[in-house]
């Protein structure tokens, strides 16, 4: 199935209307173009290639299942879309077809105050959910930097990474179970064992993670039961400046390993990131040139424990070359990390002139000991890219703890891309660079992506290399569960599952 269905057969449209009602089936151009767009830069001149044929907005699990059954009957692709904030183009249709917009599944069905869980529609946004939970003194701490805009279903579809995951876990830990529509249209409950509110079971295969992070290629989550925590009594988020990357790197290792139970995450910013911030971020513009690297830590919990942990971390940072940047920068910058849509969307030409640029990032999962080497090689790739074309701008690297032991980090390079100037040639330069970033991550024993997924041109080429035999198992599973290849076809090289049998 490699034709692009940007036009939908009237018979399919009719069946969809009969299943979910006229009002929730939209075929106009604006609605379809709008839902082909994601935040990551892409060649604007090729936008039309990714437009769906029709948009549907189901309101229940039964309606989602009915749509999937219709898609199977007519052999039409279905692409789930939640907030559309994904950075690996997961929600972008590669073959047109039916765009399943899940925003209407936005009900909070239950808040269980005793068992500390809630059951919500997959179209619920975490910020909106937490406004309601806050009234009960509770919080759902899945905290991506897209927190105000991404939705629970998209978090499941990407198996997302959370800023405060070192304390509360990531999406895979926080989503206890969910209702899932398989590519056949069959509805199942996936979790730890049979009970919806359990966080540990040894009964049967553990399939929860299989149905997370698949980028919509194995079906659709429609409702989820989430683990809740007490809303933190206290937060502390110190930022420290260092005169060298090496000092900051040593200090962040010690901070993470300081054994504080309230520790929720730490970040190290490299000199290129600091240079970028000093150029364009109000908090850092006045910082002296001696500031070459930054570290920040975040702690959440009850006041006594946050305070005790904070004292310990302040001592470690001070004794290892860190200069505290002050409450205003520390508190303000941390609060801004929950919402990175505020990133300045401009970059510079080689002559220093300001140009409009989209933000893109490459993220990898890298062990602590390999972070400096990966950082160095990534900047070399960026330097070559910037020499080849000035539509690219190196916005620096940060590394963020994946967990409380500090064994591995989300390492991210931020890249400005002057999208209006992207043509096929420049796009190819970018795709080649992405392939090189991924190869470096794999060569250092890491993973191509810690949080966004790896579906885009360039990175996806190396997924079989990274996963080896596991990639073959992915093909077998995909073919078994989705024999018609209707769920988000073209992603993750999964078409290979069908080539083999032909």
């Amino acid at each position, binding site marked *: 199935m490699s034709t692009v269905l940007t036009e939908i057969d009237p018979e399919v449209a009719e069946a969809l209307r009969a299943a979910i009602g006229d009002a929730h089936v939209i075929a106009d151009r604006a609605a379809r173009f709008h839902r082909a767009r994601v935040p990551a830069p892409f060649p604007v001149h090729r936008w039309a290639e990714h437009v769906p044929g029709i948009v549907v907005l189901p309101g229940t699990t039964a309606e989602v299942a009915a749509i999937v059954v219709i898609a199977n009957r007519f052999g039409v692709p279905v692409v789930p879309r939640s907030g559309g904030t994904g950075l690996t183009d997961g929600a972008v249709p590669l073959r047109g077809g039916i765009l399943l917009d899940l925003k209407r599944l936005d009900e909070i069905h239950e808040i269980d105050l005793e068992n500390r869980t809630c059951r919500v529609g997959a179209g619920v946004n975490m910020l909106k959910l937490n406004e309601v939970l806050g009234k009960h003194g509770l919080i759902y701490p899945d905290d991506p930097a897209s927190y105000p805009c991404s939705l629970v279903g998209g978090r499941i579809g990407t198996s997302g990474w959370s800023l405060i995951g070192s304390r509360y876990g990531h999406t895979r830990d926080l989503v206890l179970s969910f209702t899932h529509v398989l590519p056949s249209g069959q509805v199942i409950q996936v979790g730890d064992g049979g009970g919806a509110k359990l966080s540990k079971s040894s009964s049967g295969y553990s399939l929860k993670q299989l149905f997370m992070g698949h980028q919509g290629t194995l079906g659709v989550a429609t409702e989820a039961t989430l683990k809740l925590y007490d*809303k933190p009594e206290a937060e*502390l988020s110190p930022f420290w400046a260092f005169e060298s990357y090496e000092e900051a790197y040593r200090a962040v290792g010690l901070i993470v390993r300081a054994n504080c139970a309230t520790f929720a995450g730490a970040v190290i910013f490299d000199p290129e990131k600091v240079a970028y911030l000093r*150029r364009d971020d*109000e908090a850092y*513009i006045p910082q002296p040139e001696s500031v070459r690297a930054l570290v920040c830590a975040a702690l*959440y919990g009850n006041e006594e424990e946050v305070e005790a942990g904070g004292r310990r971390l302040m001592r470690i940072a001070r004794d290892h070359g860190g200069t505290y940047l002050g409450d205003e920068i520390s508190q303000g910058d941390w609060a*801004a990390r*929950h919402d990175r849509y505020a990133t300045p969307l401009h970059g510079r030409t080689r002559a220093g*002139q300001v140009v409009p640029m989209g933000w893109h990032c490459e993220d990898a999962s890298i062990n602590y000991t390999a972070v400096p080497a990966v950082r160095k090689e990534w900047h070399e790739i960026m330097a070559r890219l910037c020499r080849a074309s000035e539509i690219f701008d190196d916005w620096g690297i940060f590394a963020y703890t994946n967990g409380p032991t500090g064994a591995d980090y989300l390492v991210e390079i931020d890249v400005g891309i002057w999208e209006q100037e992207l043509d096929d040639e420049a796009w190819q330069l970018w795709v080649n660079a992405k392939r090189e970033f991924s190869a470096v991550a794999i060569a250092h024993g890491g993973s191509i992506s810690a949080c966004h997924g790896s579906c885009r041109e360039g990175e996806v080429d190396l997924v079989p290399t990274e996963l080896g035999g596991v990639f073959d198992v992915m093909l077998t599973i995909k073919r078994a569960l989705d024999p018609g290849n209707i769920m988000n076809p073209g992603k993750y090289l999964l078409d290979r599952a069908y080539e083999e049998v032909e």
Partner: protein
Amino acid sequence: MTAYRYADETTPPDPVQVSDVAIMRFEHIFEVDPKLMTDHLSQQEFPNWDTIRIVAARHSHLAWMHDHWTLKVLSAGELLDDITREDAGS
């Protein structure tokens, strides 16, 4: 209430150069140096009140975010003062 005077609002205070690439017209509000915005993007005309409003809105957004995530934001500056005092005393 103060009267709105168009001329006042469209005449920003004189800039102070704060770095190679940034200027400051209002305290703690930094702007890209206009000489870097000549070739591909030009600076918009901004009434003074709007500049101040945008920065205030940003501050209230950040304060909202804190309240949203926690009941209390602790001061690391105070903790540092404490430990500095403790260490000096010991």
